[in-house]
Each structure stands twice: as C-alpha cells, then as structure tokens.
C-alpha cells in the first residue's frame, strides 16, 4: 500500500532545506489549505453534475447535455453565473448576522471536509479525538442555518430555520451514538488509526457484523437528515416554505448554501465509508491472496473516493424516490425509533466486543 507520508515528508524536507522551521510550517499550511479548497470546489462541481445526471436518469430524462460533452461543464457555467450575480442588500434585516450566516455554514462544512482521510498518510486534520472534533465542527453549521432564518426577517425563513434546528440537533444524537458504537469496536477516535485497523483486520462493517450493519443503516438515515436532503429536506421543503431558511439569499451567498448542501452529503458519505467501509483500506477476502494482492495495487485514494461516491449514490437514490416526511414524523422517527435503537446497538456492540464475538 502506498504511504502518502513519503510525499509529505519529501515536501517538508525540501522546504526546510531553504526555509526556517516556522516559515516551512506556514508554507505547508497554506499549501494544504489551497489543496483543501480546490478539492472542495472540484468535488462540489462533480457532485452537482452527478446529482443532475442521476436524477435525470431516474426520471427517464437526459439531463444537461448541451454545455460541453454530455453537459459536463454545465456546472461551471452555473458557477460563473452565480459569481457574477448580484447580492441583494435588504432593509430591515440584521445585516451582520445575515452576511455572516453563509460563511459559518461553509466554514463548518470545510472543517469537517478536512477531517476525511484520503489515503494512508494523507489526513489533514488527524488527532486522537478526530471523531469528536468532527462532530463538534459539524455542529457549527446549524448555527449558520439558524442565523440565516432569524436574520432574514422573513416568516418562511424563520420556520425553515426552526425546523432545521430541531432536525439537526435531534439527528446529531443518533449520529453520535452510532459513532460511539463503532468507537467501542475500534477502540480509537482517530480517523487514521480507524482506517489502519480496517486495513489490517478487515472492514468494520464485517468485523462488527450485525450491530455494525444496523449501525450503518441508522447512520445513513441520520446522516441524510443531517444534510437536510430528501426525504428529510424539511427546512427547505420547497412546496411548503418556498426555499426555507435561505429564501432571502441571492448570488454567491446562496451559492454557499448550495455548495455546502452537496459537500455535506459528500462528507456524510465519506465518514460512512471511513468508519464502516474501511476508508482507504482495499477490499480483502480472507484466503484469496492473489485477489488481495491485486486489490492492493489500487491506490487508497481511489478506494476512499470510490466508496464515498457509492454511498453518495445510495443517498441520491433515496432522495429521488421518497416523498418528504412531515416535521413531527421526522422528530418521532428520531426520538422514538432511531435513538433507542442506537442505544441498544451501543450495548450490543459493547457486549460483542467484551465477549470477543467480533470477527
């Protein structure tokens, strides 16, 4: 397996050869930040294109096909348009909060994006409480949404934001519990160690068998709700609240919400693939050494991104099939079903681990 630390160490050594220590660190930070922002933008464009095409195929349509080959640069046109679109200043809004809200959302989204382990040795934010940090950083996003609803001075936005607040905070409970379940299995909160463990011992979803599979399903449902995507797109609920909390945002401010929605989907899928499906760890079958050897030739980043897109596809499939839930049903689903189930799972997993019943 290719270890990305070779590359980072080489860059580090190169920079240190002609720069003092602090300057080298600064340059590295800038480089990493640039890389993250670029990746963020690229993935957003890919995801939006993917969503439009996939939903078109689900709906017996063609989807974008006139800008570039198969409409492949359609999203670039959208981005250009969005960048040059007017950002409307409104009277009677809380200006500071109104302008700050989209940035909070995008910052939260980028912070969590930086947690994803791309390859062996290619983690940006990696420390021993990685999952804890991820959950904490992810929670900032909801502040942005609540502020957007509150500062817009619009009843639709306010209702949308309140719904969103209730929804995200509720579903974070399940996500946290499900992640705890997996931490019980792995015994570590660091993303890099979780991946390394899975590369050595097999994917968590196989190791943890029944509780892990159930946890994976709960994670997908709760994660979908965290991203505010259908069938949980209550805060936006187009047919009820026109555009929900971002109804008053135009231009790139709206663009931030739009980007964050897709990136949150990607992050949610990325975390799912990290803690359940092995992250960058290749697929191994016990006893088939030849097969395993071939699998090892595929780079870790490809595995990671491939798995993530697989989960993204699953989530899109759900989005384009189901009708929307109602807010009380949504909260009932969480507090009456998912949360008790995740508590039981946590106990079950603890029992499995302590009795050595994991594979």
């Amino acid at each position, binding site marked *: 397996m290719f270890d990305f630390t070779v590359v980072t160490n080489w860059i580090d050594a190169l920079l240190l050869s002609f720069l003092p220590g602090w300057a080298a660190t600064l340059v590295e930070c800038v480089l990493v930040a640039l890389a993250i922002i670029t990746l963020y933008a690229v993935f957003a464009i890919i995801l939006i294109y993917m969503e439009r095409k996939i939903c078109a195929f689900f709906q017996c*349509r063609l989807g974008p096909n006139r*800008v570039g080959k198969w409409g492949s640069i359609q999203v670039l046109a959208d981005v250009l348009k969005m960048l*040059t*679109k007017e950002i409307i200043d409104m009277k009677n809004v809380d200006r500071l909060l109104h302008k700050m809200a989209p940035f909070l959302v995008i910052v939260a989204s980028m912070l969590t994006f930086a947690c994803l382990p791309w390859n062996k040795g290619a983690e940006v934010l990696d420390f021993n409480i990685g999952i804890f940090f991820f959950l904490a950083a992810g929670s900032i996003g909801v502040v942005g949404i609540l502020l957007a609803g509150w500062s817009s001075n619009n009843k639709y936005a306010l209702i949308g934001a309140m719904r969103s607040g209730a929804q995200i905070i509720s579903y974070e409970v399940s996500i946290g519990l499900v992640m705890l379940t997996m931490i019980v299995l792995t015994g570590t909160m660091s993303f890099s160690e979780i991946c390394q463990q899975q590369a050595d011992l097999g994917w968590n979803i196989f190791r943890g068998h029944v509780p892990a599979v159930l946890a994976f399903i709960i994670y997908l449902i709760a994660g979908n709700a965290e991203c505010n995507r259908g069938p949980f797109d209550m805060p936006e609920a187009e047919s009820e609240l026109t*555009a929900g909390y971002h109804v008053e945002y135009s231009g790139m401010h709206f663009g931030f919400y739009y980007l964050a929605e897709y990136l949150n989907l990607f992050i949610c899928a990325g975390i799912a693939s990290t803690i359940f499906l092995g992250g960058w760890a290749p697929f191994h079958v016990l006893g088939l050494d030849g097969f395993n050897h071939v699998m090892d030739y595929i780079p870790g980043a490809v595995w990671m991104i491939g798995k993530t897109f697989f989960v993204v596809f699953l989530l899109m499939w759900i989005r384009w099939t189901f009708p929307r839930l109602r807010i009380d049903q949504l909260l009932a689903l969480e507090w009456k079903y998912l949360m008790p189930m995740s508590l039981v799972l946590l106990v079950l997993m603890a029992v499995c681990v302590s009795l050595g019943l994991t594979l």
Partner: protein
Amino acid sequence: MEVKKRAKIKSFPYEEFKDNETYEKLVQELNANGANVIVTQLDNLIDWGRSNSLWPLTFATSCCGIEFMAVCAARYDIARFGFEVTRNSPRQADVILVSGTITTKMAPVLKRLYDQMADPKYVVAVGGCAISGGPFTKSYHVLKGVDKIIPVDVYVPGCPPRPESFLYGMMQLQRKVKVEQFFGTTNKKQKEPKE
C-alpha cells in the same frame, strides 16, 4: 472600433432563427461603444456562463404553467439546457417566465417579484395573455401585456405555446444574453429605488 458579436447556439444554425434583423439591431445597439479585446473575452466567458444557466422562477398563473411543467418533464426536458433548477425564491432566480394571464390584482405582485430578483434578470412573456391580454384583452380585470409594468426580453406567442416554442424562446433569450456586456456598461438594469 465596433465589435461584432454573433451568438452561437449549439446545433441551431444562425440562419434558422426567425427574426435576425431585430437581433442584429440589438447587437448594434449593445456594441455601439465598442470594447477592448481582453474585456470582450471576459465578457464572452461570463455571458457563456449566464446564458447556459438561466434558472427560472416557478411562476405560473394559468394554462401556460401546465405547458411549462410539460417542458420540464421527460419528453421535452428543459434540463438539457441546464434550466431545470427552478427556484421558488425570486432572489435566486435569473429569469421569470410570465406564463398566464396577469390580472390587475396580480400586477403589483408580479412587479414585486420582479423587483425581488437579483440582477442580471430576464423576463419572458409566455403566451397571448402575458403578451397582450390574449383572449381576455377586453376584460376589466386583465393587464393588457406584462410589458406595461416590467421590461420583457422575449415574447413567446401561443395560447398556450407549444413546448417547442418555449425552448425556442429560451434559445432566443440565450442569444440575447450572449451579446450583453458585463464590463464597460452598467450591469444593473434597474435603478436604485429612491428611499
């Protein structure tokens, strides 16, 4: 120096558009002052982006709205042009397709919707009612053409227009967007309202 811009629409030859005279006049007007080469290139890029990403506001008052839904649906599929992202909030939309009769009670609402949209914004008057009042032009409660209250970019006649004419109208709008200038002229069409 006069810069002659001619918008190209994919798989639709220039000669096959119906009213090229009006169009050329428009091009002349827009480019009367000329512009330098770099700015023109940048303009082209931005216009390309804008013309391929005209997100419509979901706005329909009557029959034409159903035909608009048909345009969005599988057979005609407006998504091919990248226009399927219909926005429900006027702040996020680029083009308002006024499809259906506008009554005098609705007129202030339409005007307000138009004012709420962010620049650059475009208006397409779809169907006889929006163009002139159509079959209801003699009525006491019908606005005789939306161009009385908001500036219209493209007129799509019909009662209701067929989905093909919707698409043709949208392509005409694309042609118009493609010759606009972002730099050098004012980007904002509407004056700031007086307090």
